């Protein structure tokens, strides 16, 4: 239950066991976290950039990077990084220097902070919040602010255009993004990503994507929308090279420039992981006996190994989605800005609304039934998750004050609807 990476855990351990002072323990814990996060954020970015190069090379019928780092050129990203760090840090005279410098940090902070709420395996989550998904999306949406500021503060019309495009695109695409993200929330009855993931345990047909036709469609809509919100092709209007030189990052160079891309690849991984958790069974293998073996075992070692397995599963799943994003980038031509807006406002928003309504209707009319009309046991798992998530005190209050309400509350959670008997 307790978040594994919570600040209190390490600092408490340090103060209690090692006798450190409170402040020192806190500082050490913070440093440990920073190191962990930095390693985690840096690696996907490097891997992503390398993968992008390799995949694009293969798609374009060439080899991609081969020289650096041996046969596969896997050190290419590192070489790129070193090159970027070496570059001169400059900004234009017309730029608003303060904002120009701050903007990449906003993007990076927003992108990386979102990982705080992402469970990598069962209970492997920095902050297990009830508003987890909501907050993650909120913080991810801060990214756009940085991009707008960057575009504006560069003092260049290409940058300004890019920023404007990005702003319009992001503000628009947040609507279908939110709606499609709410569909799993609706089914799970929680915005806690950890709970959402737990509810897809068992066989793979318990994954939300297989629950009903609407969720299946919703996943594809969600994926499309995340492409747009990450400014990935074919929605990369903000940095359309052929039109805007480099878009919002035209005037950036060196490390600041690399921060944008660090953030972009981190976001790619983040939204992919988010899609996996929301629709594709999260860290579960999809084969019930394997998961149950690790979960129900008493040995903490086995439990730990199970968590590691889950982490690996999540990483593999989200990598596949990232690969998909790269693939799409090199496959589909870029849309015009009006086509982007049309796609969003005229198609994706109505479709997502329809899917939302359909999923709701399915939940109401066939409660607990999955796509294949198999009893998915979702109600039970939801109840389990609720009991786990909710503090014990409310349970006792329930049993004392309103025995009847305990059932209705569980039913509420399971069906994600307000039942009449509540009042």
């Amino acid at each position, binding site marked *: 239950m307790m978040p594994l990476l919570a600040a209190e855990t390490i600092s408490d351990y340090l103060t209690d066991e090692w006798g450190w002072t409170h402040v020192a323990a806190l500082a050490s814990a913070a440093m440990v976290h920073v190191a962990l996060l930095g390693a985690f954020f840096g690696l996907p970015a490097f891997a992503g950039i390398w993968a992008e190069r390799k995949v694009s090379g293969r798609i374009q019928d060439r080899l991609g990077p081969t020289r650096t780092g041996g046969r596969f050129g896997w050190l290419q990203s590192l070489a790129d990084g070193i090159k970027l760090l070496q570059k001169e840090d400059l900004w234009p005279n017309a730029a608003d220097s*303060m904002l120009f410098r701050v903007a990449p940090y906003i993007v990076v902070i927003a992108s990386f902070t979102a990982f705080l709420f992402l469970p990598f395996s069962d209970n492997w989550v920095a902050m297990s919040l*009830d508003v987890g998904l909501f907050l993650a999306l909120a913080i991810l949406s801060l990214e756009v602010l940085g991009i707008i500021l960057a575009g504006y503060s560069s003092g260049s019309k290409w940058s300004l255009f890019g920023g*404007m495009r990005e702003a319009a695109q992001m503000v628009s695409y947040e609507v279908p993004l939110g709606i499609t993200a709410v569909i799993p929330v609706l089914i799970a009855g*929680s915005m806690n990503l950890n709970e959402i993931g737990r509810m897809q345990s068992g066989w793979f047909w318990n994954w939300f994507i297989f629950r009903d036709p609407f969720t299946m469609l919703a996943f594809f809509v969600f994926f499309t929308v995340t492409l747009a919100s990450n400014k990935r092709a074919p929605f990369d209007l903000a940095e359309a090279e052929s039109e805007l030189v480099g878009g919002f990052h035209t005037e950036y160079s060196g490390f600041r420039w690399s921060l944008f891309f660090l953030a972009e690849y981190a976001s790619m991984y983040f939204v992919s992981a988010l899609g996996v958790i929301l629709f594709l069974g999260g860290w579960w293998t999809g084969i019930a006996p394997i998961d149950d073996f690790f979960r129900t075992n008493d040995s903490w070692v086995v439990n730990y190994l199970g968590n590691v397995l889950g982490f690996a599963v999540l990483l593999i799943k989200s990598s596949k989605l990232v690969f998909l994003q790269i693939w799409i980038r090199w496959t589909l031509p870029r849309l015009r800005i009006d086509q982007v807006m049309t796609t969003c406002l005229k198609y994706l928003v109505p479709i997502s609304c329809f899917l939302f309504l359909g999923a709701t209707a399915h939940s109401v009319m066939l409660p607990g039934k999955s796509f294949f009309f198999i009893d998915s046991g979702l109600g039970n798992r939801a109840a389990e998750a609720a009991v786990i998530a909710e503090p014990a005190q409310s349970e006792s209050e329930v049993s004392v*004050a309103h025995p009847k309400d305990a059932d209705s509350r569980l039913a509420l959670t399971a069906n994600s609807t307000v039942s009449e008997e*509540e009042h």
Partner: protein
Amino acid sequence: MEMFLFTVFAAAACGGAIAVVLSQNVVRMAFYLVISLGSTAGLFFMLSADFVGATQLLIYVGGTVVLLIFGVMLTASGPFLTIKSSPGSMVLAIAVGACFLMMVVGTVLQVDWDGNAARLEGQYGASSLDRPGYNQHGEGHTTRSIGTALLGARFDKDLGKNREQPSTGYLLPFEIVSVHLLVVLIGAAYLARAKRRVHVPSEF
């Protein structure tokens, strides 16, 4: 720890707000506003109001401020970015504001909060006041309660002791706000529609 975080957030919020006042560039004002509002969201998290904080981030920082910057970019190109107000009015406004602040803060300090807390404890019981620090057990998990309250059920009140009569929650205000937002959506679209092309003089 709590004091540290509070100090950081409060300083950021107040500093951001003051920077908004002092800044003359509209886009910078927006940036400072983001800092101020984001720090306020942090304060909300400290006050164990997760959902409010998240909403603050999503709507204010992610939505409203983007909208504002958008507006800035649409309207305040070139010379309008920095419209300086006269020092006199600045001084006057700051004087009035200072008086106002003194008045409010003075009032806040005058109140016997501990005594009030004790009274409240006597009246409502200790549970509502005796809250441990953030991220403690059961702390900040207000999303479900708020959600059901907006749909008309109050778990935090109806499930408590001595609650014979269920409360009505916030269903009606919620619906009113929904309709209100719809009206605003339509109204704003209508207001901002392109009515005519304005010839901008070339010297701008």
